[in-house]
């Protein structure tokens, strides 16, 4: 497993770029808040709403030895001449191989292989049937992988996404909302129940799915029966924040926007690298939400959030939290279990849920009076994060910046997703 600490010291340029990049970062938080908690909770047509009910999770932790991330020899494809391999930095879940004349093979070990075929070209004769064909230009995409939309936004290819599995109310990032309002992007049914008539009618040339599709195999089969290739994104399985961010390079290759992808990825790297010299404060952080039955949802220790807290210069309060019974990235604790450890946390971050981000410490106390005994509450270190970050994968590194601002007690003007709620 590659580690970024110390590895990219040489990329000073990126570090220098970090600050202007951060300040020009669009502030989604404000816009997200304009969607009231009520309208979010009334929203039901979202893909995740359906997914929530399924017996599985979108955010899962990978198996210990998924076999990913190793050097892989370029597949030999009769009729194509291999040229180069994308040099990956952090991501474990994919490979991109370049062939002559603009052909590219995207290999997502646990999803499948996809041959990107340049406009006007054909698949080479005798190509393995298992390899799905992506014919450029891919300009009628059905986006059912929520976290991937922000990548397309960053790449400037959102106009090629003509269909969405979330409706307008389901999106918390502005670009798809604007596209849907403008009528250039249509709601085409949630991932588990696409409106096939809309897909076929719009000449859908790619269905971009999250791993949730694996729980509805009949949908995947149907899409393939309709000659619609199904690409399954696995960025949420990357446990390092920059591994997740690096997935923009897959889509850069797919959409012939490699340069834009490199730039966006460099920006995310620079955000992380900018914090490299920030000493670890040793301050402990809890990241959680509360169910109405008082149980507390926390992240497992081996998750991306603890990773981000670490990078921000803090320490996740739960050192060894796991529940082998579930692959989910999160798990439930009783309030008492949570209390016994988190009561001493220097900072607590409430993960804004469907019931809305917290607006005051009183909101928190209303959920459970025990919070009044928490160190973070007493010291005025209560924070909240809105839901936007779930969808804004392309800007995920800014959550680290936010956490760092929290820990360093720096200028809150630079915050993107988080907000301090205690005085």
């Amino acid at each position, binding site marked *: 497993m590659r580690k970024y600490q110390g590895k990219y010291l040489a990329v000073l340029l990126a570090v220098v770029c970090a600050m202007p990049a951060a300040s020009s970062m669009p502030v989604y938080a404000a816009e997200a808040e304009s969607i009231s908690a009520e309208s979010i909770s009334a929203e039901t047509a979202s893909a995740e709403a*359906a997914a929530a009910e399924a017996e599985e999770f979108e955010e899962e932790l990978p198996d210990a030895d998924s076999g990913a991330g190793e050097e892989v020899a370029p597949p030999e494809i009769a009729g194509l001449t291999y040229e180069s391999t994308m040099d990956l930095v952090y991501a474990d879940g994919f490979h991109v191989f370049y062939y002559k004349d603009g052909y590219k093979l995207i290999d997502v070990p646990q999803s499948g292989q996809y041959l990107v075929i340049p406009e006007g070209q054909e698949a080479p004769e005798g190509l393995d049937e298992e390899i799905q064909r992506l014919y450029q230009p891919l300009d009628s995409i059905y986006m059912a992988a929520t976290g991937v939309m922000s990548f397309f936004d960053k790449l400037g290819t959102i106009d090629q996404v003509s269909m969405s599995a979330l409706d307008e109310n389901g999106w918390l990032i502005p670009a798809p909302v604007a596209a849907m309002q403008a009528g250039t992007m249509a709601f085409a049914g949630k991932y588990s129940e696409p409106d096939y008539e809309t897909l076929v*009618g719009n000449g859908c040339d790619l269905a971009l799915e999250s791993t949730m599709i694996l729980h509805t195999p009949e949908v995947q089969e149907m899409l393939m029966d309709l000659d619609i290739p199904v690409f399954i994104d696995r960025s949420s399985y990357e446990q390092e924040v920059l591994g997740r961010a690096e997935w923009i390079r897959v889509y850069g290759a797919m959409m012939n926007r490699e340069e834009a992808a490199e730039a966006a990825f460099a920006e995310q790297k620079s955000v992380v690298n900018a914090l490299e010299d920030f000493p670890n404060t040793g301050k402990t952080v809890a990241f959680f939400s509360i169910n*109405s039955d008082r149980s507390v949802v926390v992240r497992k220790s081996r998750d991306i959030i603890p990773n981000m807290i670490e990078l921000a210069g803090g320490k996740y309060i739960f050192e060894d939290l796991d529940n082998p019974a579930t692959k989910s990235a999160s798990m439930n604790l009783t309030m008492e279990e949570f209390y016994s450890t988190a009561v001493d946390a220097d900072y607590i971050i409430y993960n804004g849920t469907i019931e809305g981000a917290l607006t005051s410490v009183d909101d928190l106390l209303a959920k459970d009076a025990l919070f009044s005994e928490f160190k973070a509450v007493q010291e005025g270190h209560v924070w909240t994060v809105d839901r936007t970050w779930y969808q804004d994968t392309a800007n995920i590194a800014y959550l680290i910046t936010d956490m760092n601002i929290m820990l360093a007690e720096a200028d809150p003007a630079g915050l993107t997703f988080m907000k301090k709620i205690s005085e």
Partner: protein
Amino acid sequence: MKKQIWLQGAAVLMAALILAGSAPAQSAAADVNNSTTGDVAEVTENSTELADGEYTPDSFSWSGGTGKAKMSCDKILVENGKIYAHIIFGSSYYQYVRSGDEKIEEVVHNGDTSEFLVPVVLNQNYTIMALTTRMSSPHEIEYTIYVELKAAAAGSEESPGIPVNEQYQVLDEEAPAILGLTWSGEPVTTDSDQIRMYHYENGYTLLEIRTTEEAEEAPEEDSDADASALYRNPVLKYLMIPENGEIPAGVDRQVILVQQPVEAVAVTSPDALNRMEEMDLLDRIAGVGIPEEQIPIASVKEAMAGEEPEVAAIGTYDDISYKDLLMGKMDLLIEDAAILEAGDEALYELGKRAVQMKLPVLVDLSQKEQTPEGRAAWQDVYAEIFGTGRIDEK
């Protein structure tokens, strides 16, 4: 038969009249065990004339979400004239339920279940929202439920038959009970031993088609089965829904729904083509899945020719192009009887895709009819589907 039913109706009416003059809260109407005793007031709100107490629903069904959830209702409570259903979700991850303006946060988590007392309206589709945390972030899911309590329903003619989802092995010989629908009282009339049609009030019709000569053993119950499992049954049951007609929650898992009007039909059966020609229905044909040389009607062949044909070629009965069905926005596929011979699961496999496309598949078995009357009975079926009169009535 008819007379007996009328008498039952009269009894209900009389009971209701007696009730109207008595103190409702304490009246005998509360005796749910006496199913012929009903409340005269049609319940349209979450209040009732039923006496406070506990009742057992006559039936419960629901739809919504991915269809993979489990939900049941084992009792109804009436408290101060307000109706609550005890709803049990088959997962411990439900946190609250919304019903109208109310948010019910009081939940009992019992092992693998979440139980709520939810204010509901009886005997009609009713929408609730439930929040589940079975994912990285919680989400509300909309469900439509139908809690049936006959004691709270306005007096209506009861179907003489068993519930429509109780058996699929043989044809129903009496009008089955369908949630939310009232039997018209019209007895079945058919000259075919393969089909039955029953009429319900407000223009709903149930069509049953028997696909096997002999009743097979019942397939194993699969509570997770979705609507496509209906295509595995020896008897295919179709409910024709009139234009703008409401679909009672959960009925989609009990019968195959045919939404009227049916205006763009795909046909893989030459018999069906001939019948549609006889009945002057060729203009409803949008797709044909019959090899060209076997198409019996010249005008259909012509409509399929050219650069932009009016009628699409959709493959063959055992190899249908779903893409063409979708492109043509077809609303019914009439399959040739040969699909039943194409392998044990051929119809089911087709049915799975059809359910995904929200396209009902009807199998035309008229060629198996032994008598002219039997074949003529299929004209009644088509007249019902397409909303036209029978030819002898024209």
